[in-house]
């Protein structure tokens, strides 16, 4: 059977001045339709790089990546944009709603870029907002909503394009624990309804909500299996070799931690 996501010997190598950094160091990974996978790792583990490549925001230095059977590892920017538009739904830590647009316009954005007609856009945006229970707020600006509500709008936006993969990057990072739990249970519900969800996090307590955990360290997979396995949540030893690529993520993790 064909895998939805298939990494074959993926390397991502950055040149930081004199130093060569292997953000991903030969990763093989497959994710199938309907899975709920958490990619876990500390800052510098390469999880953000993995998420960028899965999300078609970046291309690997070497290796191949097939998404839905299509080789996307060597695509040009605009081709990647089309793949993102059609096959991926992003949920970000900072919600990333456009402040000038109201809730419905935000949700319609991926459909707008897909060239969907105005009428159908409205319809699908409202349906998507109904799924997250925010249809009544559709004329509000993001700034008029709470953090949890904003994150639900961004989920509605991710769903609107009817993507193959929902890619959630630290979706609870900016939320209090109760709202965070709500968002996670919503992702579980989406998965139960058949959506494929890939969650990127540094937090074990969040990762265990997924069905499967893929743990990265220094650009390599050190665990890949059931999230209920006790081995899945064993913290690896501190290596101290922080990956420059994930420096920013590390910063966010610290901020959130406080």
């Amino acid at each position, binding site marked *: 059977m064909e895998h939805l996501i298939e990494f074959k010997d993926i390397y991502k190598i950055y040149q930081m001045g004199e130093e060569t950094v292997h953000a991903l160091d030969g990763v093989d990974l497959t994710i199938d339709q309907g899975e709920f996978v958490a990619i876990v790792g500390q800052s510098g583990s390469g999880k953000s790089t993995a998420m960028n490549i899965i999300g078609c925001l970046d291309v690997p230095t070497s290796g191949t990546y097939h998404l839905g059977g299509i080789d996307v590892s060597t695509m040009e920017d605009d081709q990647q*944009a089309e793949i993102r538009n059609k096959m991926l739904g992003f949920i970000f830590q900072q919600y990333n709603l456009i402040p000038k647009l109201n809730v419905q316009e935000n949700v319609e954005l991926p459909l707008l870029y897909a060239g969907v007609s105005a009428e159908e856009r409205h319809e699908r945006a409202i349906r998507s907002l109904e799924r997250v229970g925010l249809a009544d707020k559709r004329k509000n600006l993001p700034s008029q909503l709470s953090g949890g509500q904003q994150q639900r709008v961004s989920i509605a936006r991710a769903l609107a394009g009817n993507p193959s993969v929902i890619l959630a990057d630290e979706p609870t990072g900016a939320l209090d624990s109760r709202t965070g739990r709500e968002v996670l249970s919503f992702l579980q519900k989406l998965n139960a309804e058949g959506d494929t969800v890939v969650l990127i996090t540094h937090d074990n307590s969040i990762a265990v909500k997924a069905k499967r955990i893929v743990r990265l360290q220094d650009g390599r997979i050190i665990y890949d299996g059931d999230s209920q396995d006790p081995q899945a949540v064993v913290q690896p030893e501190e290596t101290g070799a922080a990956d420059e690529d994930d420096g920013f993520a590390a910063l966010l993790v610290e901020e959130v931690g406080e």
Partner: protein
Amino acid sequence: MNFGQSFRLAVKSLMTSKMRSLLTMLGIIIGVAAVIIITSLGNGMQNYMNDQFEEMGSNLVQAQVYLTGSSLDVKADDMYALVEKYPQYLSGVTPYNSIQGTVRQGSDEFKRTSVYGVGETFYNVNKNTIMTGSSLGKGRFLSYVDVEREMAVCVIGSYLEQEAFGGDALGKTLTVSGAPFTVVGVLDQSGDSSEGSSDDCIYIPYTQANRLGGSQWYVLYMFTSTDRSTAAAAKGIVENRLFKAYHDTDYYVVLTSAEMMDAMDSMVNLLMAILTLIAAISLLVGGIGIMNIMLVSVTERTREIGIRKSLGAKGRDIRSQFIIEAGTTSAIGGGIGIVLGIIMANAITNVIALVLGTGNDGFVAMPTLQGIAVAFGVSVAIGILFGYLPANKAAKLNPIDALRYD
């Protein structure tokens, strides 16, 4: 992507920072307003001149002949003979000599009064008008006999009748350079009846004028062609005759009124083109202002660009969004500039009417539809042109970096 949404977004972001938007558009507003004002003035001037020419008639052919003082010189009778010889092209001719002479009536002196020596054909009996368009109000015009016998009679303008004779001039006498002339006719008011205007004039027989004028170095002949369409042929006939006399084209200039009009028009057009070009520099400066603010806007909205790209916006979607925004900014600026320009042109019309006292039928600075369209088109084009660089910068942003931008 969708033009409508880009346009709405652009208007929205313009409205959120009104002061900044206004300052951004200022260069375009001033440039477009200046272009509109200049083209309006040019158009008004052209219309005004054309009206003057229309009054005079479109079938006039003017011959300016330089006098050599020798026997070569063409005489008025030669010109009359020409009209008789070619009745199918020429319907009349009159000398038309402006002379220097002081006009006196009693103790009053009229220094600015224009004195012209003309023939009886200067007056068109059927239309009751003279060649400059004024109509005869009272009395009669100069007759063939007046000219032939060098009678001391004259026809005067309405201003002179009012000022010199208190509104009743017929049969009374005034002097031109000391020589007495009896008023036989008075023209209707054609200008604003002020000193030095077209109503401040005297027409005397050219035969008299030749004596009074002294050493003239040229004479003017006004021919009328049978029709507007025969004007060019009539011109050729006059030129041929003059060439036969002088064997040198340097001694005369023959122009049809259409040519005179064209010459004036092209002069005005050239002047307008130069002024418009200068005004257009302001448009260029305005364009640079837009580019500057768009570059700032792209930086400010880096994160938005990242979000849009992550949702599937292609380079060209982002590019067109920013280009539409720049185009909208300059188009709105252009619109404001057009309105401002039209208001200013109207104000100038009123000021000129006030200063010259010509009222509403004088000079009107009229914006042309073409001028407005071009000004608007150019302002939009400038927005697009100068918006391209910032828009391209936005389109080329890396989505990962843009998403992380704070």
